[in-house]
């Protein structure tokens, strides 16, 4: 046994074992963190030097050659983004249409006594002074002259001329339009007349009456042309001229005439009975 493991070898092994024992007794990796750091540094420098050409090649590939693909991907993504943007707009359009239809449905539900036929606006008045629209419902849909036309927000006007498939609607803002009306809060009656501008006048209200700004003006139903209680607009101005027996009341229509799209033809009396 001793022949196979000479004494000269025992000493270095013992030293090595002692070193190992010392190192083990020093605690967790303290020797490595302090003593071996030059090794790591050396290794690091060597590694940088050796791998530099490879890294350069890899970087060139990633930053330039592979970018060709990135460019293509970028183009595709931009295109995809444009498609998504367009789809988003379409969804927004559908949302708006949905809101509009819901408002129309609400109006129909809240006025069960009225026979309503939905219609769309085909064209507007060709002059700047008069206010009419043509809708896509006519005699074939039961509309006749004087049929009231409403939007979900309130009264729009009445039919003045009708063909099989179209009707010419005189808007309440037209200078030739007159609608029997009353103030909802006080019951004061008058006639709402169009002016050809975006506001109307409530006429024939005595100066002795009290009319507040912000009051709601609704149809009074007098004359039987318009159903009772349809909202016309809101009082935005009251002027009392000394020596005059009537007030000068300005009314803003509840329907935004520049945004009307979907409307209802309202059949009354005999038409409703049908």
């Amino acid at each position: 046994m001793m022949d196979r493991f000479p004494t000269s070898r025992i000493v270095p092994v013992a030293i090595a074992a002692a070193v190992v024992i010392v190192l083990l007794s020093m605690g967790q990796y303290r020797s490595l963190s302090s003593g071996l750091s030059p090794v790591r540094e050396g290794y690091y420098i060597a590694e940088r030097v050796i791998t530099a050409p490879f890294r350069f090649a890899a970087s060139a590939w990633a930053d330039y050659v592979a970018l060709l693909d990135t460019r293509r991907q970028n183009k595709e993504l931009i295109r995809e983004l444009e498609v998504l943007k367009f789809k988003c707009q379409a969804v927004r359009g559908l949302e708006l249409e949905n809101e509009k239809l819901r408002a129309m449905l609400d109006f129909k539900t809240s006025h069960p006594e009225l026979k309503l036929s939905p219609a769309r606006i085909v064209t507007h008045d060709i002059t700047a002074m008069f206010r009419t629209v043509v809708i896509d419902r006519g005699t074939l849909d039961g509309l006749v002259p004087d049929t009231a036309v409403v939007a979900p927000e309130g009264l729009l006007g009445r039919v003045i001329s009708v063909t099989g498939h179209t009707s010419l609607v005189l808007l309440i803002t037209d200078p030739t339009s007159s609608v029997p009306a009353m103030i909802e809060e006080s019951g004061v009656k008058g006639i709402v007349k169009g002016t050809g501008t975006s506001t109307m006048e409530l006429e024939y209200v005595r100066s002795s009456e009290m009319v507040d700004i912000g009051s709601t003006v609704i149809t009074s139903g007098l004359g039987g042309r318009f159903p009772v209680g349809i909202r016309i607009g809101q009082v935005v101005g009251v002027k009392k001229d000394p020596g005059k027996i009537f007030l000068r009341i300005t009314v803003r229509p509840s329907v935004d005439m520049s945004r009307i799209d979907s409307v209802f033809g309202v059949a009354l009396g005999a038409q409703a009975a049908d």
Partner: protein
Amino acid sequence: MLKLQTSLLGIVFLCAFVEGAVIPALWTPLRVDLVLGMVLGAVVHLGFGQGLLFVMLSSMLLQSFTSARPGLLPLFYLVFFVAIDMLKEVIYLENPLTQALFVSGFSVMGTACFFLVQGVVPQGFEVVSMLAGCLLTGCAGPVMVGFMGRLKKVYGT
């Protein structure tokens, strides 16, 4: 003559579509009168007889797209036609700038007269849209006059 008048009325119909559906779809209060330029074109390129016939027929056709009192549109276009026809000998109407000024000016005058008669004053944004409409009417004038000239050339009348 029949062919020319039919074509002209077809164009007037197209103008009514543009004025009543296309332009309001872009900006609802905006109204551009394309027919006013055609009336000027009738003075410049057609004879008095043909022009007068065109003015009357077209204005009656346009009556179906407005609540204006029957006869008001024919009156408006007729006054313009006669006034321009009288000035034809004095003013060089072939100049596009003159045409634009005349059409625009008459459009402003017509609108102002209407509101004076009605006794109402358009306010704020309405004035802007009306002025824009009158200016665009003036811009469209020379184009419509040129169009009438080309049509006259095609039919050779």
